[in-house]
């Protein structure tokens, strides 16, 4: 193997700026999509356990569609197919948007991940003892208030380990955004390799970004889990990423 390492290259311009920007893009793309996915996922997860048949069906349909189509193809659908289906003047607005690929990635990643979070929420709600529902209703809460103040806070605590690993999944899945032209860390590593032929250095930076973020998130969420713990209610599970 004849390969000359040149790690210093990573600190030279323009590579250094590329790397910093790409890491920032990867992080806020993942974070924004994850927050949206949580909101949608909780709504869909609750829908799947309501007495209304129509809502249950809509929730199940959502989950099956978004879980059973590969994410890469979903990104392509949002990029190429979705704008075609918009009304004319929205289409113009969308096409003139500067960072359309970025927002496409946000939509694609959050809707895909929401389906997975919805499943976690659904099973978490099933794990809540039925007494909690009855107690909430008998204290005079409306069904909406029951979910808002009792069931969802409970369910979210149960699934903290699961949503941690969903964050890590969405974080890794941002790499697929390179196919639609988002300059996140994997695509920048590829670009640096093409420019400088120093692939090992470039890919090491990308891998290190993912590994370090994973470790940081696991530590942080372990702390969150400890803080959010309701004494006596939920058995703590070991978070495993």
């Amino acid at each position, binding site marked *: *193997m004849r*390969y000359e390492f040149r790690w210093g290259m990573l600190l030279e311009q323009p590579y250094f700026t590329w790397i910093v920007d790409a890491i920032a893009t990867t992080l806020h793309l993942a974070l924004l999509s994850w927050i949206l996915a949580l909101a949608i996922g909780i709504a869909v997860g609750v829908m799947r356990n309501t007495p209304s048949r129509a809502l249950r069906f809509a929730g199940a349909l959502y989950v*099956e*569609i978004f*879980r*059973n*189509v*590969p*994410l*890469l*193809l*979903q990104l*392509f*659908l949002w990029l*190429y*197919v979705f704008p*075609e*289906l918009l009304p004319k003047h929205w289409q113009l607005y969308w096409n003139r948007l500067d960072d359309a690929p970025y927002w496409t990635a946000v939509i694609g990643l959050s809707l895909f991940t929401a389906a997975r979070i919805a499943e976690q929420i659904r099973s978490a709600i099933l794990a809540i003892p039925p007494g909690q529902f009855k107690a909430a209703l008998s204290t005079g809460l409306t069904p909406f208030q029951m979910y808002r103040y009792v069931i969802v806070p409970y369910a979210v605590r149960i699934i903290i380990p699961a949503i941690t690993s969903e964050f*890590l999944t969405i974080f*890794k*899945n*941002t*790499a*697929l955004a*390179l*196919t639609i032209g988002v300059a996140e860390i*994997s695509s920048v*590593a*590829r670009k640096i*390799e093409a420019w400088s032929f120093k*692939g*090992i250095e470039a*890919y090491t930076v*990308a*891998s290190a970004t*993912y*590994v370090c973020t*994973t*470790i940081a998130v696991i530590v942080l969420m372990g702390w969150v889990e400890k803080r959010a713990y309701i004494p006596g209610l939920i058995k703590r599970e070991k978070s495993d*990423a």
Partner: protein
Amino acid sequence: MDWNVVSANFPLLMRGLGTSLQLAAVVIVLSFPIGCLIAIGRLSRRRWLSAVCAGFVHTLRSNPLVLILFWFYFSVPLIIGRSIDDGASVIVAFVVFFAAYFGEIVRAGVQSVGTRQVQAGLSSGLSYAQTMRYIVLPQAIRSMRPALTTQCIVVFQGTTVAYVIGYHELMHTTSMIAERTVRPVELYSFAAVAYFAVCYAGSLLSRHFEKQA
């Protein structure tokens, strides 16, 4: 909308789907046994062996598949000194990547069988290998089946990632035809239906196993 573009290219698209299925099958068949070995390594009492296996699993699981593919696509030719074909680097990268995931499923499955079962097996005079073979593994495999089926769907969906290096599976075939005919709406919708059909069938199978367990 002009669905003729789909029917005109139907044989090509089906060949793409065939390649995707074949790639998924090869990857599953090769990575599952490696995953079993990794699981055995992680459960081993030898500290260094379980540390090495855990390191392997954690490193691969914290990196995206695309990046692992780039690593192999780029660094394997560098190490062996000549270029290799796309198919080989895709298969090697996918097998290494998914072996880590299969390893975790197998480990969780084996650990789901209680230690009392092992103790009971050993105290009834079976050897450790016999305990594994006749008591632990049959129960572990039973409880792993839903997760394994789901993982097979993940592998199948993962084959789309081979698109990035131009491997001619369904995703890449579809995008090539879409570029040539400038009919992305019809073609990507068709691909979505094709992927959905395969994955949904898989998820029904997984649910069936879940009910049995």
